[in-house]
């Protein structure tokens, strides 16, 4: 069997991580998704998606105590693994290929 399918929400979370670069942990991910999508995002959903992605090896995390305003509490920072980046690239290509030639139809609709 081939690789697991990437769910839509997982896809969104990975993109948010990519956008946030080294500042990515669950709080900014939630805020970024809310900002971009304009909808409320449940932290639980983000947490579960992150754990699942981590299990799939697309994301890796490490616990750090940052020097800034965290109040000394540790945060789990996340970044995409090379596999993760590869999967995003593949997804974009697939989507782009699929989008080709359908834009005029949409615009008409």
């Amino acid at each position, binding site marked *: 069997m081939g690789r697991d399918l990437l769910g839509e929400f997982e896809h969104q979370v990975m993109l948010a991580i990519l956008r946030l670069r080294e500042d990515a942990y669950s*709080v900014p991910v939630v*805020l970024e998704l809310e900002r971009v999508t304009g909808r409320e995002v*449940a*932290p*639980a959903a983000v947490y*579960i998606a992150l754990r*699942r992605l981590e299990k*799939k090896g697309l994301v890796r995390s490490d616990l750090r105590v940052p020097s800034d305003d965290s109040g000394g*509490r540790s945060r789990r920072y996340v970044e995409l693994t090379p596999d993760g980046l590869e999967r995003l690239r593949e997804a974009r290509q697939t989507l782009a290929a699929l989008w080709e030639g359908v834009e005029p139809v949409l615009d008409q609709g």
Partner: protein
Amino acid sequence: MSWNEKLLRRLLPEDRTEEVLGDLAELRQIREARTDEREAARWYRRQVRGFTVRLLALRLLGRSSELEEERADARFDVLHGSVPGARSGWSETLSTLARDLRFALRTLGRTPGYTAAVVVTLGLGIGANTAIFSVINGVLLKPLPYGEGDDLVFLRQPELNGNQENTFFSVRDIEDLRDRNRSLVDVAEYHSMSFILHGRGDAEMVTTGVVSADFFDLMGMEPALGRDFTEADDRLGAEPVLMLSYGYWQTRFGGDPEIVGEGMVMNGHTHTVIGVLPPIPQHPRENDVYMTTASCPTRSGEGFIANRSARMMSVFARMRPGMALEDAQRDVEAVAAELGLEHPDHYARDLGQTFQASLLREELVQNARPTLLLLFGTAGLVLLIACANVANLTLARTSRRSQELAVRMALGSGRRRLARQLWTESAVLGLAGGVVGLGVAWGGMDLLVAFASRFTPRAEEAGLSVSVLGFALVASLFTALLFGSAPVLTLRSGMAEALRESGKNSAGRGRWRLQNGLVVAQFALAFSLLTGAGLALRSFWELAKVDPGFDVENVLTFQVAPWGSADVNSAFDQKLFLYELQDRVRVLPGVQQAGISDLGPLAPGFTMRHGVRIEEETEMDGRRMPQAQPRVASAGYFDASGIPLRAGRAFRRSDDLEVPHVAIVNEAFARDVLGLLETEIPRAIGRRFTPCTMNGQCEGEEIPTVEVVGVVGDVRVGGIEEEPPAQFYRPSGQNGWPGGRLVVRTRNDPLALVDAVRRTVKDLDSQVPVYSVSSLEDIRQDSMAPRRLTMILLLLFAGVAFSVSLAGIAGVIAFTVSQRTHEIGIRIALGADRGKVLAGVMGQGMVLILGGLGLGVLGGVGVGRALSGGLWGVSPTDPLTFGLSAVVLCALGALACYVPGRRATRIDPVEAFRSS
């Protein structure tokens, strides 16, 4: 922390908890900055709830890869838990155990109320058992503290067909026994007497053990200080020597080691202290000092030694190695039979006079055994009740945890894994209860030792020892096994249901049945104990109502020993001294009357009987000569003691040797010896009889025939429980020995007069010791003390058992109500009468209580039967006791159900719906 937050914490993997909650809090702060505080709080609550629901769903639906991983973990656990060492050895087992222990401690720490209730309940139960076991261990189980004590025997000379348990031994008996036996290595003699000791300070009466030189050697005792007696000390004419008992040395001389070598005057001779005994139990009684037979004026008398019938000594012996008691018994019986043939005048073969051997070990504890075993049994029942109660608490708790357990089971934690976890929790609780129990036992030890010392000289050997600690450990683990099996049993049945009803506490039908069964069992046991304690209480009550035959209120009694003074040389001098003392005491302020007697009205342990020959009854018709107890009394004695005069007159000071000999008899004498009916008692006056001597001599110059001049009421002389014996009193003025005990009736507290009395004696003659000073009331109380203490302990146990059972049923009913909140809410909303709701809830409890009562009656009959030997004046199935116990049980049981029942009637339907 809200309930949801707690749940969330549990659902999150341990290493993620803090970061997730931290992230949530951070988001909440951001919301707060953007909107307002209330809005943010609402959002936060929603998110926490959502988080919980998602995680739960994830677990229950079992679709995530996380789940797979945790399943694997669980399988790993099970494998290692069930096959310790098979794969990774001891260290893995230990670390599993450590993990289980940590988890158990954490879980229990989260429910401090439950944990405390369980630990205290178990602590009481284990404590009671440990305390009593420590006494049983010290008294019944440990070998005697004497060297090779199991070979020691105690000999008696009973009249099997007569009424004599022991006629004791004469010097000739002992000599022949020593020469002729084949089963004994060593034969030592013993008797006890009171002598006056002029040592440091005031003259004082000491109980003195008079023993043969080999006595302590036979017992395997080494002196703690100085040396033991030698053969030379026991030869007639040897320098008199003394050994002190450890207790007397401590209390009287403050443990001064310089005492060895000091001289003390006894019986007109200087005795040298040669040693001090170690602190070990003394049998048959505790003595202050010990001397050899050669120093005892009575024992060393030529006539006494020659008289085969002069019996007053006890015999201790050591069996030859390998000999059994039966061998020794056969052997001494054979010796007795031989002696009986050789000296028919001195052995009443027709009365079955023989020698008997028994193990000293048994002698020391025979009075204590039944009481201790009874208490041990009772304490065992208390522990069972405590177990049932804790099992119930634990079941209720498991019920509340069913969600957690169900989830863990769904995750693949096998039943064995969960069972192990539950067992670990139970074991932790059991051990904590054991620690508390040791504290309870330690705290109650002094009291219990004081109690046991009423029954056995070995009581002092009780204490916390390695075996007692071992017992407490075993009791704790056994208890844990008992109550811990209840929740484990329900693991099977309850879980599927719990899953279906997810989110609600739930209890399977099996669990209900078990909980109800436990409550019924608790009440059955508690009722049995209640009736047992009730029977003991009733016995005591009946006993307290018994008329002892004298008036105990405001009477002081004390003993004097005028023969201790160098100025008192004859019986006549003693009499003058006593009369003078009586006269002086009588005029002390607060004194109403004073009299002299030999023993006072209550003298437990005094069993002497003499034959009496009634004039006009020369033919004995083949029956045995009637026996009666000889007593001595002065003018004023009956008045001072409150013994009523039924006919004739009391003694007068003028009843002396100048006038014909007289006597006063009691009603039992008139009835049993003179053969008079109750109504004919005055006809005893004028009858004449001859009191025979101790040796059965009824004729001779010194044996007068006496005329009855009065009849007095019966007195329960041997103790409140004993029927009054036939007694005759001789006047002090006509008896060889005028007596030495004063009985003083006072207007107020008799003990307030003690100093004045002591001063009066000292003023009269400072060499005369005053001793055994106490009020008559105290002597009476003391004679009832063993029974009272046993009763108090039984009541205490029954009280604990009953309270625990009440707490148990209240808990179960409260739990039911909490489970039925929704249903009761609906019924109230639909207009159900609140009274009916209350009746319904209480009815459920009462069914359990009545069930327990039904079984308890059977148990009570059993307990009554076990107690029957110790009951007095009450039948083992006394309907009043059973009835009252049942009423108390039902009334308090109903009260215990009423409290949670009332809560049910206050359920607010709206709240009930909301919470569901």
